[in-house]
């Protein structure tokens, strides 16, 4: 029997492939190679400031998933947003403190997409320069101080 983390990831993958979510696409080839590393493409929603843009999220899971949260960050072109640092780190509470095992890749994508959709201005976080110079490579090691709970 495969380990519980893998088993659950396969279930999530199957679910996302059979019932795709709008604006969220999974790189099946990459996932097939390694179930613990996912690349997900997110399309900026219509009628938002990110309309027409696409971004890529990288998910990394460890063997404690879903009890431990996945590591999630943007790679490649990083969306300009007040909660997204220029190195791809995302300031979103469900990725660390507020993670629960009932959340999923789909739920995280959805909430990142809605975080993008709710933005009215394209700007970096005020502490972007300092943070990106001093932070760990792993965003889960940052002690996030969440800007606001509404997003």
């Amino acid at each position, binding site marked *: 029997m495969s380990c*519980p983390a893998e088993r*659950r990831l396969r279930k999530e993958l199957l679910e996302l492939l059979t019932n795709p979510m709008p604006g969220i696409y999974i790189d099946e080839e990459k996932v097939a190679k390694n179930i613990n590393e996912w690349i997900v493409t997110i399309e900026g929603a219509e009628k938002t400031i990110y309309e027409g843009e696409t971004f890529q999220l*990288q998910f990394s899971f460890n063997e404690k998933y879903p009890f431990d949260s996945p590591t999630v960050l943007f790679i490649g072109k990083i969306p300009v947003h007040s909660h997204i640092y220029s*190195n791809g780190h995302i300031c979103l509470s469900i990725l660390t403190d507020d993670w*629960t095992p009932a959340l999923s890749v789909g739920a995280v994508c959805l909430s990142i997409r809605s975080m993008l959709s709710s933005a009215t201005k394209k700007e970096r976080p005020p502490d972007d320069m300092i943070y990106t110079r*001093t*932070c*760990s490579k792993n965003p889960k090691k*940052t002690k996030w*101080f969440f800007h606001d709970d509404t997003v």
Partner: protein
Amino acid sequence: MSSSQTTTVNDPHLDNTTTTNNDTLPNNNSQEPSTSTDSSQYRSSTQYSFKPPPENSKTSTKPDLDDNEEEKRDDSMYVCNICLDIAKESVITMCGHLFCWPCLNCWLETKPQRQLCPVCKAAISKDKVVPLYGRNNEKQQDPRSKKSPPRPQAQRTEPDNSQNYQGFQSFGDAGFHLSFGIGAFPFVFFGSSFNFNDIRQRNGQNGSQFEEDQFLSKVFLWVAIIFFCWLILA
């Protein structure tokens, strides 16, 4: 719905009969309920015989595929919110969310200081979850009383995780800043390359201030003692 569940749970007699029934169930096909059984057992075994007769089940194996979707939809009600399988050793929280006991227990153990329902974040605890007993569970044993199964408790490989990290260029060094985040913002602002000196300088200042304070308090202490002696002598 929850009320019906609690009634079955709260009826220990029913549990007992169903467990003993397990042995007699195969006899039902011969439609001769064992005569020695008491009335309650008899009732339950006849109820059982209302269930699909064996002939039907044979013919229904092929159409089963078509029914699969419907079945899936029905089954999805009983899917554990953590492992996404049909819940085993199911328990339900007071907020109405279903889990396998091993799954929920593992979650409670990962965050012992902050026990929240994974679905709705209501406060939960081991004592306040209700075990669910279906009709023909082999053993109607409270899953919480069992030792949690020998789960492969994950090895602590957190640091590994950051090393294995792929597809990422290195940014400065990863060691010293962990506690910085945004909180330490004003300190860091003095210039990135002088971070340490700056903080040390501040610490130095704090240190000398501290010494001064100590000196002053000593002086006052001596003044007080001298004053006290003077009072006594005078």
